[in-house]
């Protein structure tokens, strides 16, 4: 390379470095952040307090508009507080990033994080204990305080009354079903109270017409919500504590029955043939375009489903089981208390105050109103459907159905990450015919023993 070329290249390098420094210094966060970029550092004692909010959704505005609106509304109502949104693209990445942040002292002030990791963080002192908040906001205390204090996040009894997570959303999950598909094929759609045997008939009937009964995508490992609820009907919550203590095993009759039930569904052709190569969003698309009869999903989809299917959609909790355990008339209505507060907030009075105000707003009536507008269940108030969201109305009527009560805990939310992943693998494994029911249970047991 001759001198000229060298000069040119070094010039280019210098220019890039300059450009780089300029962009780095001058620029605001290129993403969805509001307010300045530095995380965690409090500018208290001054005029505005900056809070960071770490969330597991890449594009909050588009993907969870209700949450985005709540955050904006909070900022409007509190002009002296600025929120910066820090996004990761999914729960897994959020977990990894939050762990890293904890270890490097850069945890966001408020962030979403699942139980398995949060417990470790709490034990290591990285996140705040929150019962103090209930004294600050007595309204929330009245609404949900008891449950927070008495039930541990892992489903066991909370002996100390301490807790470290506040509700992020309610997991109301089950099957959305497309009434048109059933009508066109002269099949009676399921309703709350349909037994498994009856459901099996429906599956076979649909299968004969070449219609996928349950749209599901194995590539998204956590998208088996309705089946988590069904696991509760087979006694998951009854057994789990004893299993954790080593008194019982995952290989037990009830659990085997559960997986056998899934196996039967598979044999009857309930699941799509490409279940292993599609993800949840593809499964959703298949349902929305009329190519499947039912979708395993929950409240978060009500707005989109309403848009595409309007009043042609119904909501069903799933089948009841003769060989199930306990009350079968239960539907998943679990709070996920995944909103955490960094322990460092405790040190800074101004920040703590701002965080508490945020939490109050988050759990308050105005925020709940926003949520209902988007067809998402409120956290501390009683839901009423708006006129326009028919899908949400269908869900509400299922929630309010007589004789049916809510399940407060979803199996994969109350266990460690390893068990959660193994559980989802087990369920999808049986759905795709890769695991036998026995193998499913055994994989869970060996994961439990390895811990």
């Amino acid at each position, binding site marked *: 390379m001759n001198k000229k070329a060298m000069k040119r290249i070094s010039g280019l390098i210098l220019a890039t470095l300059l450009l780089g420094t300029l962009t780095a210094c001058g620029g605001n966060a290129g993403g969805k952040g509001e307010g300045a970029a530095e995380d965690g550092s409090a500018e208290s004692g001054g005029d505005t307090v900056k809070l960071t909010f770490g969330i597991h959704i890449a594009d909050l505005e588009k993907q969870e508009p209700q949450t985005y609106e709540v955050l904006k509304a909070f900022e409007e109502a509190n002009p002296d507080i600025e929120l910066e949104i820090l996004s990761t693209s999914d729960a897994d990445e959020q977990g990894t990033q939050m762990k890293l942040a904890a270890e490097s002292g850069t945890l966001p002030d408020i962030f979403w994080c699942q139980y398995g990791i949060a417990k470790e963080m709490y034990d290591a002192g990285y996140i705040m204990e929150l019962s103090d908040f209930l004294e600050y906001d007595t309204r929330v205390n009245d609404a949900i305080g008891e449950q927070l204090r008495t039930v541990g996040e892992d489903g066991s009894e909370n002996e100390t009354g301490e807790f470290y997570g506040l509700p992020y959303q309610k997991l109301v999950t089950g099957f959305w079903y497309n009434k048109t598909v059933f009508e066109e094929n002269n099949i009676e759609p399921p309703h709350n109270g349909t037994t498994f045997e009856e459901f099996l008939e429906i599956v076979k009937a649909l299968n004969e017409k070449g219609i996928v009964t349950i749209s599901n995508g194995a590539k998204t490992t956590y998208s088996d919500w309705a089946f988590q609820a069904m696991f509760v009907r087979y006694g998951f919550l009854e057994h789990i504590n004893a299993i954790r203590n080593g008194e019982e095993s995952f290989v037990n009759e009830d659990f085997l029955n559960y997986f056998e039930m899934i196996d039967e569904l598979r044999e009857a052709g309930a699941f799509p043939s490409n279940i292993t190569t599609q993800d949840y969003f593809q499964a959703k698309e298949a349902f929305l375009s009329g190519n499947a009869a039912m979708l395993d999903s929950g409240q978060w989809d009500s707005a989109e489903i309403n848009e595409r299917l309007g009043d042609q959609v119904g909501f069903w909790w799933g089948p009841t089981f003769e060989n199930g355990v306990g009350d079968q008339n239960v539907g998943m209505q679990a709070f996920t208390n995944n909103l955490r507060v960094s322990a460092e907030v405790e040190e800074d009075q101004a920040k703590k105050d701002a965080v508490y105000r945020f939490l109050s707003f988050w759990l308050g009536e105005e925020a709940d109103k926003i949520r209902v507008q988007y067809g998402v269940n409120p956290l501390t108030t009683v839901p009423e459907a708006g006129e326009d969201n028919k899908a949400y109305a269908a869900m509400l009527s299922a929630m309010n159905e007589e004789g049916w009560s809510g399940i407060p805990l979803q199996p994969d939310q109350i266990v460690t990450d390893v068990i959660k992943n193994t559980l989802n693998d087990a369920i999808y494994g049986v759905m795709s015919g*890769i695991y036998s029911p026995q193998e499913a249970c055994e994989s869970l047991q060996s994961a439990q023993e390895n811990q």
Partner: protein
Amino acid sequence: MHWLSKKRNLFVMIVPSFVIYTVYIIASVCIAVYYSFTKYTGIGKAAWNGIENYVRVFHDKFFWISLKNTGIVLILSLLTLTIFGFLLANVLRVKRRGNDLCKALIFSPSIISPIIVGIIWIYILDPEVGILNQILYKLGKEGWMQMWIGGTVLSPYMYAVIFLWRQLGYLSTIFLAGLNMIPEEIYEAAEIDGANAFQKMVYVTVPMARNTFNIVILLIITGVFKIFEFVTQLTAGGPNHLSETVVTYSYTTTFSNGEYGYGMALATVVFIITLILSEIYNLIMRDKEEEQ
């Protein structure tokens, strides 16, 4: 050179590389090995666990499956990339008008981000949505339709195919360079001896390109152990970890399951395997060189 080779100069010249390399590569390996003897979730303290993790690796059927998958990819890649790369280079050697264009086009896949390569191939290989099966169907060859990905068997083969697609141009360019260094005279001599095209290739080109083969093989092996995004995009290692490679399995265990200790044990085992492979390779090369 003695005069310039004062200790101080040597020191200054070597230290930057040495420090960065030692910290990020050597120390990292040591850290990985350390954690492989612990139970650690990423937060709090790491608890000493002895060799339990390694015992578990031995019994872990997913590990053996991922090893098998990696082996399939490795062997297939070695075979296809060396043979086709070599052949392609031979074809490209002949002066032709479109040569440069073809060379550039075939090389281009290696420019593209592997994530995007993965995304492209999903839309080709997916049994339902991908066009491969659609094309087969339209051609009436329904019997040939397979679960290219998402099944329990074919996925590793597909990784090798995609790896081939991506690296062929790149590696054949290296071959081309090596071939271009073979002096014409040798070919002329061979022709005088009555060799035809095929014999020329086998008896002249191949032996003379030995050095090039070495480099290519080295690049293939290191490349195979860098395959990551193809797996995550195409199959997410699934279904149920049946199509993981050792690299992706170690990653999933560490970051998705939060089992950092066990994940590092897996990583260390992979590292030992690559060490052994490279030693074997070196030995073979040394023997061959001595033969020469």
